[in-house]
């Protein structure tokens, strides 16, 4: 440990959608690393500890080191030449960088999509169908006397969700914290989150929709046949008891995870939980919220929505935004073989997409921006190494409940940040597109913000 130590208070952890902004970081400025992250959970500690300065080049083309400028030029040429270029990722970078990425898509008339399409995209679709009664997390802390988690395992994925926001904290109308709340967990297996709950309900895999719909019926006073137990693994008595709890609480919340969106039923499951929440508002105050994963996936939804009107899966081929999940979402554009160039920002689809999509990635020029080397950067034609948001850069991120937070940088990185690279690419693609169309405008005169 060197003498050159700095403390950064109220820093923000962006490892998960909890976006805890109460980090106290101890930074060794000589060694350029964070040696302690007070208040962080086990995941947050790893996030801060492991984001040190790497030893790979800022930019590579086909695995060979090149200058940043060469890589930007090659990226711009590749994107402008392509007929169906796609941009994907964005959930682990700042809103400032996301704004630039959407601008690039608009200019090159490409397609932009975020990791939302493979996490809570179905919840986004459900939202468009039925709406949602929801809240900021502080309302749960202050008011919720009934907290239900469905198809999610925060103990593993969002370790401080319980302790900072929803279960243990004392709140304005919850003076005794945990004691004043009833906690229910619904899942297909007993996850590490189960010990937190007063009641664990186990559903047969793929039967969430049936259970949710039965709950809706019961809430509305309709009869349900006891054979529901055989179908779903949950007895009628259990359902009736849950309905009773939901109708009689003061402020109830239903959190749900990818256990609902990634399985049979997808957006129908999310829609059922949102509709159930709406129904319950006839009896008491009830809210729901998808538990979002990545640090700024919610920011990506917001930036795309304000710039284009749509939250993900947006295509600009016609010179204006169009939205069509299944057509413009990334798994589809890759699996169908439509994409003829791809830029992946702060995301690693080559390690978690369906096999057929990964195979197509290997056939087209890929550009990657990431803080670490990944399967995706390994197969990339152009690979940029960038600095880490919230550790080396400030900027804005949105917590899972749409609350925006400004990050504090802990130490400088020799690597550029995503926003810098994307801004440079944007300027260059704009020039190339204008040149192609024979338009003479100096950059700066037109809006390229």
């Amino acid at each position, binding site marked *: 440990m060197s003498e050159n130590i700095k403390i950064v208070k109220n820093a923000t952890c962006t*490892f*998960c959608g909890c976006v805890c902004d109460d980090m106290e970081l101890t930074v060794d400025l000589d060694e350029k690393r964070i040696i302690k992250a007070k208040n962080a959970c*086990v*995941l947050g*500690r*790893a*996030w801060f*500890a*492991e*984001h040190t300065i790497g030893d790979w080049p800022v930019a590579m083309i086909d695995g060979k080191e090149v200058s940043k400028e060469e890589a930007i030029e090659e990226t711009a040429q590749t994107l402008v030449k392509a007929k169906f270029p796609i941009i994907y990722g964005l959930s682990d970078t700042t809103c400032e960088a996301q704004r630039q990425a959407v601008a690039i898509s608009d200019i090159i008339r490409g397609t932009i*999509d975020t990791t939302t*399409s*493979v996490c809570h*995209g*179905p919840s986004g*679709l459900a939202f468009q169908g039925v709406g949602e009664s929801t809240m900021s997390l502080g309302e749960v802390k202050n008011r919720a006397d009934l907290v239900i988690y469905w198809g999610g*395992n925060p*103990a*593993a*994925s969002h*370790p401080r969700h319980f302790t900072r926001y929803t279960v243990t904290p004392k709140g304005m109308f919850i003076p005794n914290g945990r004691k004043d709340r009833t906690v229910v967990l619904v899942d*297909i*297996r*007993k996850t*590490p989150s189960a010990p937190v709950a007063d009641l664990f309900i186990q559903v047969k*895999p*793929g039967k969430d929709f049936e259970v949710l719909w039965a709950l809706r019926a019961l809430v509305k006073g309709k009869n349900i046949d006891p054979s529901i137990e055989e179908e779903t693994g949950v007895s009628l008595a259990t359902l009736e008891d849950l309905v009773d709890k939901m109708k009689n609480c003061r402020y109830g919340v239903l959190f749900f995870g*990818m*256990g609902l*969106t*990634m*399985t*049979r039923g*997808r*957006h129908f499951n999310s829609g059922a939980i949102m509709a159930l929440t709406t129904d319950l508002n006839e009896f008491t105050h009830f809210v729901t919220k998808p538990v979002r994963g990545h640090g700024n996936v919610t920011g990506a939804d917001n930036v795309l929505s304000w710039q284009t009107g749509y939250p*993900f*899966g947006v295509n600009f081929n016609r010179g204006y935004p169009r939205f069509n*999940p*299944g*057509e413009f*979402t*990334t*798994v*589809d554009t*890759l*699996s169908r073989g439509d994409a003829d160039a791809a830029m992946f920002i702060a995301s*690693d689809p080559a*390690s*978690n*997409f*369906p*096999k*057929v*999509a*990964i195979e197509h990635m290997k056939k087209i020029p890929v550009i990657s921006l990431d803080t*670490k*080397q*990944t*399967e995706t950067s*390994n197969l990339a034609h152009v690979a940029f190494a960038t600095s880490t948001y919230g550790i080396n850069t400030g900027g804005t991120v949105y917590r899972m409940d749409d609350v925006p937070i400004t990050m504090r940088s802990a130490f400088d990185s020799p690597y550029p940040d995503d926003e810098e690279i994307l801004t440079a690419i944007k300027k260059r693609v704009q020039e190339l597109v204008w040149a192609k169309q024979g338009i003479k405008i100096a950059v700066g005169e037109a809006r390229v913000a």
Partner: protein
Amino acid sequence: MAETMILVPGRSSKQGTALNKGKLKPEYLLVTSTLEMNSDDMQRLGLEEGDSVRLSNEVGETVVTCKGRKPEDLPSGILFIAYGPPSSQLMDGDTAGTGMPISKNIEVLVEKVTVKNI
């Protein structure tokens, strides 16, 4: 012996910490290729802790290492794995018009691999 079971890829906290080290690092590769299985099921299939199993379906196949879980924690017939390159091999690219591939509850054939380190 082979049986059809349901594979549920998900997140684990071990995966989360390993991820920060780097996705190409051995720790990450290890967590994403460790399969959790009901211990009764393991016994029936003649599997022991650390044995290699092949998971396959019409999309593809992958070989992972299995690890037992108590029956009260993981129901019979359900397999858990942390997302990663191995689970990708079994995911279908069809999203049924939603953008979301079915990434949980994938039906797979489970069989013991007799020759290790394929």
